[in-house]
């Protein structure tokens, strides 16, 4: 459930500074030819909150997401995650620093079993080194730890029975769950979810929401892109709204949708002007 106390006292204005920001982006610009897809002056994410990033289609949410996670590089701007500068950091390094992401189009590794998917998510496996790989005694102990951790997560995400099936045989919703569970294998401090509800059947929505809330309870920070406003209201402590590449509003979920700039962005500036008589 949204917890108003952790964001209490933060001014609901775009680009506002947060008392304990884990992720900071400053002056981020991404242009594709003549089109400026992202132009965010300042954005901060408060630690241990669930923050939603919303906006109409083409607002630049996903591009901004890619910039933050290193999958795309901005032409201008800087950012820090947990005090480390993000500029120029490749995606793998961002993930190792503790910020893992999922994808809008789920990327389950379909030719591999559910269990192998999970194991791949873990960090610090010495057997991932070419030379160490030849000598199993050097990595078996860590492999056992990883397997145990994977079993726990699979139980929690109700995929345990599927552990030996190939990931390609899972349903769309189960793949989303697997992707999230796999991301948790690295024990991240921040989880970035790109449209976690896209293509998930309604029966699974509730459990997916619960899983996201659990992440916060375990001390993680969540930033997610979503279209489903119902879901945004249900779980997010704070909502940031983008339109045409810019951050146009921020605030608690309840009030941000009342914001005039937000309504204009979603519905057009003249949505409540009666045009009928002038035609």
């Amino acid at each position: 459930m949204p917890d108003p106390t952790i964001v209490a006292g933060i001014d609901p204005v775009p680009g506002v500074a947060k008392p304990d920001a884990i992720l900071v982006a400053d002056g981020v610009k991404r242009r594709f030819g003549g089109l400026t897809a992202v132009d965010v002056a300042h954005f901060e994410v408060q630690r241990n909150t669930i923050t939603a990033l919303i906006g109409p289609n083409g607002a630049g949410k996903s591009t901004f997401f890619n910039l933050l996670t290193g999958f795309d590089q901005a032409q201008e701007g800087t950012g820090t995650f947990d005090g480390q500068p993000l500029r120029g950091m490749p995606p793998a390094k961002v993930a190792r620093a503790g910020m893992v992401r999922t994808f809008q189009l789920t990327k389950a590794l379909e030719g591999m079993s559910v269990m192998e998917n999970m194991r791949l998510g873990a960090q610090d496996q010495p057997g991932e080194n070419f030379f160490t790989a030849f000598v199993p005694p050097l990595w078996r102990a860590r492999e056992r730890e990883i397997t145990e951790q994977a079993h726990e997560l699979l139980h929690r995400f109700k995929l345990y029975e599927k552990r030996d099936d190939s990931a390609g045989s899972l349903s769309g919703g189960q793949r989303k769950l697997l992707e999230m569970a796999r991301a948790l294998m690295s024990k991240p401090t921040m989880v970035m979810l790109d449209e976690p509800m896209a293509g998930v059947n309604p029966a699974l929505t509730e459990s997916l929401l619960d899983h996201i809330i659990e992440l916060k309870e375990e001390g993680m920070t969540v930033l997610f892109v979503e279209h489903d406003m119902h879901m945004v209201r249900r779980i997010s402590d704070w909502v940031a709204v983008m339109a045409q590449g810019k951050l146009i509003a921020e605030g608690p979920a309840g009030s941000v949708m009342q914001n005039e700039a937000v309504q204009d962005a979603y519905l057009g500036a003249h949505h409540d002007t009666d045009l009928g008589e002038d035609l």
Partner: protein
Amino acid sequence: MDLLIDALGESFAPATAAFAIAAIGLNFHFGLTGLLNMGQAGFMLLGMYGYAISIRNGLPIWAAILIAMGTAIVFGAILGWPTLKLKGDYLSIVTIAAAEIVRYAGRSQTFVNLTGASVGIRGNEYKGPFEDLSPFPDERITVLWWTYHGSASNSWWLRLVAWTFVGLMLLVFWRLSRSPWGRVLKGIREDEDAVRSLGKNVYWYKMQALIIGGVIGALGGVIWSLGNSVQPDSMGRATTFWIWTLLLLGGAATVFGPVVGSIVFWTALSLVKGLAKLFIPESIMPSTVIEPFALMLVGVTLMLLVIFRPQGLLGNKKELAFHA
């Protein structure tokens, strides 16, 4: 009966082993990592040159093998450096061109003192030290139905060493493909970005896969050259496609696929050729046409295989199947 014995003899010929080794290398590229290396013959040729030239200059066998492997490491690094950051197709374009560059450089008169240009390097210039190691007598030996020389060229000794190498390479593949290292490669084969998002340096892993597969290809080249001679045109594009063919035939991403593929491919080819010679009268098909005819039949068989069993003989359709 002779026909069958000849064909079965192919199944453990040194060339079959050499191709199996090269295909194990390609299995690291394509089977595990999904890299489309279309220049495996180039790696083989480099291994052949590395070994033969080293021996001719008086280096011991172990050093010559290390140099053969070293050339493959350098070649792989040069190929991978600009291309592995790009999506898959670029690698196949660059590798096919690079393998041709190696072949043309080998043929060129510029390096005639090193490579012997288009004539190549004759066997007796570099086979000596290897054949001297043979524990077998220096004469023709018959085992069961097959008679080969004990030590020289296409010999029992070379067969023993070649298949020992196949065994070793199988062991390497088996160990690595079932390690966390191999798991990262399989992840890359499925989806690079997903593996990046899990904190793995994809570029570096692809580089390692390209190099290890290339080094194994070079070793296959060394084995091949010990049964033949070093001749650049024997390692053209067709060789690369044969290696692909027998890998897909046996089943990519499986441990024994490349070996089974190589054995089935060469045995079948020999059998088809023999049968054609036996049953098709000279007036209908002169002996010069038999060779291309046999290759054509093998080609048709392979098309049927890809259509009806895209995962190969041993493969797992859920893991990796050949689909265009």
